[in-house]
């Protein structure tokens, strides 16, 4: 074919200039993109967000052409488990639907919320600069259609390219530079009221100036109460974004805490001598219980994929920076320990069992804790950027583990050397874990938030859309403090689940675009 200039064989660095001194908010780019890329109804690769700024008679409407920022350091690429999302040598962040597993890690990680799952094929997609056109020497569809020439594509490696010149000479800006992504989509003349997703007030009544706001459970731009901008600014038009991770992910963190926690608590007991290696609890109850919960965890993970039949690609095409991959291998390693544990039990080998406890504890801890790193890979979900998250997850594992074991341990089982029953030790462990959980939660929600996003997410969790779950969690885990004197383990477990749901969903409730 003539014209083909594959992006892989050049020193070109494609960049875009969105000139908002020219943009008239007409949405030609929005529909041209839909047409070129056959984008389904209700999802968008690009659209024009609109914010009314000011008070009469000095009000103005600010536009923002909103799309993938073609980051030099794209978090979506780091987060993608299969390298379906990838950066080409010419800087275009592209995607390969043939190896996408639909895990939504890229969506969670994008600080601009520019990625979505195509409802018809289950794969992630976004603006890819019309790479298929670029490689043929053609401008992207949005560039061609724009009535006022507000969208420009150029080569940053060429110092006299008009886009490069504008980027170097004009007061251009990028969205959310603090996310360390180094975007290659530059905005000229854009207003802070649009660039900052929380600058404008989100209107009431589910309404925009000429459209509905869309489903209530979506993340809409704008702040529901006190916007970041002290100027009068109201979100006039926007599209709804879906939270990538739904209740299945909340549930997965809980089942995983149970799986890792049950084994971890028991193994610690074994090492500290509170549980005999030849007890039926250690030999059978613990590995079976933990295995069941781990299987549930794996099941949830696969269920949450939009292309579940492709889950094997995590192992076959691992992209090692992805915590989804790392987590999968950690979980696989931990399952192997559980398998060996069962084998040791079958062989009735106490020594092997003891060695496994030593090897398995780090893997159980990693199984419990890796999710903190997975969540942290979601760069713009500020609630999840907390350094308290790894210890919190560990505490949750202990909480879940002790509560999860309790119903299966007989009162008659005496902890060696302690003179009390294993149940008593478990009850005190549960109470301690609940106390730690509450302490960390209090820290999490009361410490001054480093960003407006973290503050809004916390607000949504504690007082907003997810407060019912959050407070149910706090109260039920609070009852867990009475574990030594009352049977509160089921309540504590439910409380943990409620808390997890509030935390996972609130983390995704803040608009990023």
């Amino acid at each position, binding site marked *: 074919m003539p014209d083909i*200039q594959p992006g892989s064989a050049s020193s*070109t660095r494609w960049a875009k200039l969105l000139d908002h001194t*020219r943009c*008239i*908010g*007409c*949405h*030609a780019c*929005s*529909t*041209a993109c839909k*047409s*070129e*890329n056959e984008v*389904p*109804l*209700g999802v968008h690769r690009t659209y024009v967000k609109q914010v*009314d700024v*000011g008070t*009469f*008679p000095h*009000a*103005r*409407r600010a*536009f923002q052409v909103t799309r993938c920022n073609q980051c030099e350091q794209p978090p979506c690429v780091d987060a993608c488990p299969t390298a379906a999302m990838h950066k080409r040598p010419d800087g275009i962040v*592209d995607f390969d639907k*043939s190896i996408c597993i639909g895990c939504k890690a890229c969506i969670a990680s994008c600080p601009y919320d520019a990625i979505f799952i195509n*409802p*018809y094929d289950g794969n992630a997609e976004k603006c*890819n600069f*019309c*790479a*298929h056109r670029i*490689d*043929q*020497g*053609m*401008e992207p569809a949005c560039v061609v*259609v*724009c*009535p*006022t*020439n*507000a969208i420009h*594509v150029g*080569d940053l*490696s*060429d110092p*006299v390219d008009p886009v490069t010149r504008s980027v170097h000479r004009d007061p251009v800006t990028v969205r959310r530079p603090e996310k360390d992504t180094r975007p290659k989509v530059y905005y000229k003349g854009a207003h802070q009221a649009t660039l900052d997703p929380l600058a404008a007030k989100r*209107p*009431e*009544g589910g*309404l925009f*100036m*000429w*459209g*509905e706001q869309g*489903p209530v459970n979506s993340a809409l731009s704008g702040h529901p109460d006190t916007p970041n901008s002290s100027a009068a600014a*109201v979100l006039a*038009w926007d599209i709804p974004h879906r939270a990538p991770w739904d209740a299945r992910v909340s549930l997965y963190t809980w089942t995983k805490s149970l799986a890792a926690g049950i084994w971890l608590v028991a193994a610690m007991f074994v090492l500290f001598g509170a549980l005999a290696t030849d007890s039926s609890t250690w030999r059978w109850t613990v590995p079976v219980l933990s295995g069941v919960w781990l299987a549930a965890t794996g099941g949830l993970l696969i269920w949450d994929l939009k292309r579940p039949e492709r889950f094997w690609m995590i192992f076959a095409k691992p992209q090692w920076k992805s915590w989804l991959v790392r987590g999968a291998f950690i979980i696989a390693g931990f399952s192997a320990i559980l398998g060996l544990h069962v084998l040791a039990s079958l062989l009735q080998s106490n020594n092997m069992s003891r060695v496994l406890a030593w090897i398995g504890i780090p893997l159980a801890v990693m199984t419990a804790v890796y999710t903190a790193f997975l969540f942290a890979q979601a760069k713009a979900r500020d609630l999840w950027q907390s350094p308290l998250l790894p210890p919190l997850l560990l505490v949750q594992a202990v909480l879940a583990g002790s509560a999860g074991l309790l119903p299966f341990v007989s009162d008659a089982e005496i902890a060696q050397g302690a003179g009390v029953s294993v149940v008593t030790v478990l009850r005190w462990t549960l109470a301690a874990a609940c106390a730690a959980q509450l302490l960390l939660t209090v820290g999490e929600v009361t410490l001054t938030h480093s960003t407006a996003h973290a503050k809004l997410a916390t607000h949504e969790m504690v007082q907003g859309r997810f407060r019912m779950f959050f407070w149910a969690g706090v109260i039920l885990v609070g009852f867990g403090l009475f574990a030594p004197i009352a049977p509160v383990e089921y309540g504590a477990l439910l409380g943990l689940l409620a808390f997890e749901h509030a935390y996972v969903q609130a983390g995704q409730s803040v608009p990023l675009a």
Partner: protein
Amino acid sequence: MNQGSKSKRLRSYPPKDRWNDWRELDSKSWPERVERRYSLIPTGCFNCESSCGLLAYIDKDTGLIRKFEGNPEHPGSRGRNCAKGPASKNQVEDPDRILFPLRRVGARGAGEWQRTTWDEALDEIAARIRKAIQEERRQEIMYHVGRPGEDGYTERVLAAWGIDGHNSHTNICSSGARAGYAFWMGYDRPSPDHANAKVIFLVSAHLESGHYFNPHAQRIIEAKQNGAKVIVLDVRLSNTATHADHWLSPYPGSEPAIHLAIARHLIHEKLYDREFVRQWWNWSEYLASEHPGETRDFETFERILAELYDGCTFDWASSESGVDAETLREVADIVASAGNQLSTHNWRSASSGVSHGWQVARTLFFLNALMGAIGVPGGTYPNSWNKFVAAPIHRPPHPDHWNELTWPQEFPLSFHELSFLLPHLVGEERGCIDTYFTRVYNPVWTNPDGFSWIDMLRDEKRIGCHVALTPTWNETAYFADFVLPMGLGNERHDIYSYETHDAQWIGFRQPVMRAYAEREGRKVSDTREVNPGEVWEENEFWIELSWRIDPDGSMGIRKWFESKKEPGTKLTVDEYYGWMFENSVPGLPERAASEGLTPLEFMRRYGAFEVERKVSTVYAETVQASELDDVAEGPHGRVYTRAEKPHGANIVPLPSPPGDAAGRRPVGIRVDGEVKRGFPTPSGKLEFWSPILAEWGWGEMAIPGYPRSHVHPDNLEPGQIPLIPTFRLPVQIHTRSANSKWLDEIAHTNPLWIHPREARALGDLRTGDLVRVETEIGHFVVRAWVTEGIRPGVVACSHHMGRWKLEGQDGQRQLMATVELTSEGSRMRLRRLQGAHPWRSSDPDTERVFWSDVGVHQNLTFPVHPDPISGMHCWHQAVRVTRAKPDDHYGDISVDLVKSKAVFEKWLGDCRSARSVSPDGTRRPYTLLRPLKPTPAAYRLPDRS
């Protein structure tokens, strides 16, 4: 160091030489490189009047339209489009479109339809028309068009039938602006040269509205980037206003006060172009007529001019408009800084809102006239200079009778048909209609007082047969006898030309599948062969219908629809356009030949042709001696000649100012000794004082002025505020884009814009709360959008929403609510049963419709407000806004038809009928533009007997 660019040059468009076989990588298969082969066929967008160029990408393997991109060969749109261009694809694939001819069974409007054949429909309609013509009931045939696709085509069909049956949408759209411009310069439309302007002054929203959205937006932003200042007058915050250096939000109807204050500033500070005014205004005629006692020299006129507008101070304009005086002064200084590079534009907007709204355009053009910014680069041109209309193969004579239903005597100066009064005029038994065509027109929804339209359409005595020519269901088609599916923009032929900038060009809309088939070597003789279902196009329909009206040619109709090459056979669209492109477009045959193409092949391949770039300052041209024969000169320098009018290729309709008593025709105007072309006005000059207005009973309005409008605070009752119901949404187009899902998902409702101050007064009204808006004749219930983007004390609601379908009827489900229509005495009601909702269709996207709100049909609650001069429906309403009552539901509409009739009669009372004011016994000044202008004899008022 190498300073040259090393980046790859990206192309915007496929090179023209590969349009026959363009190969492109498939976006869906990406990153796998799957090549698709396309044939690129140009056509014209039909989603607004700009008619921007489109290129259809037809997949050679599937034979389907893959997408529409811009046509770089189109001089107006230059390859770019707005959101509506690419979205044309949705309309082609719309699962709710009408594919077969339908005829009503059961009562009209009851919603039962039966598929029929084109033959049956054509025969039946032709028989009716033939009978009406034979029985001398020609005035009972009416063709009512919203968006004409082609200049003059259907007018010629009607002319061939010998009927004055053209009806248009003009008087709900642009009459105000047309009258304002015409009384100055004869031409009734402006063509602002934004690209070269220093100051752009818009009384409208042309970065988002038609006439001509995308072409103008390109050039406005281009000028702005070059340093031009932009001033926008609009009551609400538009996307256009947001780009203005000065956005002025005047109290609605006060725009002329602002213009006059600026004019006063220019006059008092002597900042205007005195030489231009001296040479080109009809001040001498004005002095002679209105100040006969004064010396007739320019200095005297200047003194009187200053006196006339002395009261129009910034403070006065400020008190009328609510815009502070200091801002007005700043704006006036900016206007003064423009020199003659002042491009101004008013279309629809304020001039279509209020009584005497035509003064908005007249006072705006006053500024151009003062600055000499007319017909010069960066100024405003008359549209006719920037528009090319090619002569067709046949030109039948115009009708010799007058249709009183469209041109009632009460409105001798109207621009044009009093279309929106039809139900009232028919209701007064001024006439009835035997066969009524509606075409890309939906009066039930678009016009004010839609319930009166329903009332009329239901009555078979008043409307004998209603034929709806439409690609999609609409509110009016539900009350038709025949619904005949006509093609979308890419399924029909049209030639068109619009004044998008300082040039003349033609565009060619064509059925792309037909052009594709022919390109691939298949012969197509009827567009139905390639269109979906049995969808047709009007051009072939009218030819066929005309043949069936006059099958043997005995009525003298058929000959206008016959081939010239083979007389006695049917004219084909290929011959029609082939002839036109060969014979009527200067330069086109040569250009085509240079590429080895026939002119028709050239137009089928490229879709557009630029006839002329940079039109000169026509008014200042010296009239050639060959045109001066036995000349005579009027008292104010008007020059008349007996020389024949030279043949011109461009047949764009022009005003026809009167000749002299001896039968000479006006040819020019003497200016400083030389005979110049001048303007097509009675005086030949720019008419600061309009002799037409003065002679036809409106002497007090003859100079630019500021009459207080029907929504002026003095004319409101306590508690009433003005409602602005006229603004467009950038991605929708009236009644035509509901079938476009990509546009509907962006814009699908029309809440009432209300300022926080008003909202507080209504007890802390919040966005989303229900309000009841009471007009003179009824009310509607709508949601509130509390915004700083509207003047306090005014509310606004876009007219683009509120589509509905009756229960059990087909319709465009993604943007039509299902409603229940009830009548009780004179009161008619609409209640919403269900909003939009997802549904299963051939397009999986219809299951993803996420909105239910499709807005409220406010126009139903508006009575008719015909302006006594322009005939414009004055859209703005005096309303009372309250919180919704307990029984109110969203979308409720209620109207009392008795009240609606009373308002009609009240406004009719303000008219000055030709019967009482005509100075010469005619119905209308013959010079004024009029579609399908009848013969002069038809202009004579009938005897009163």
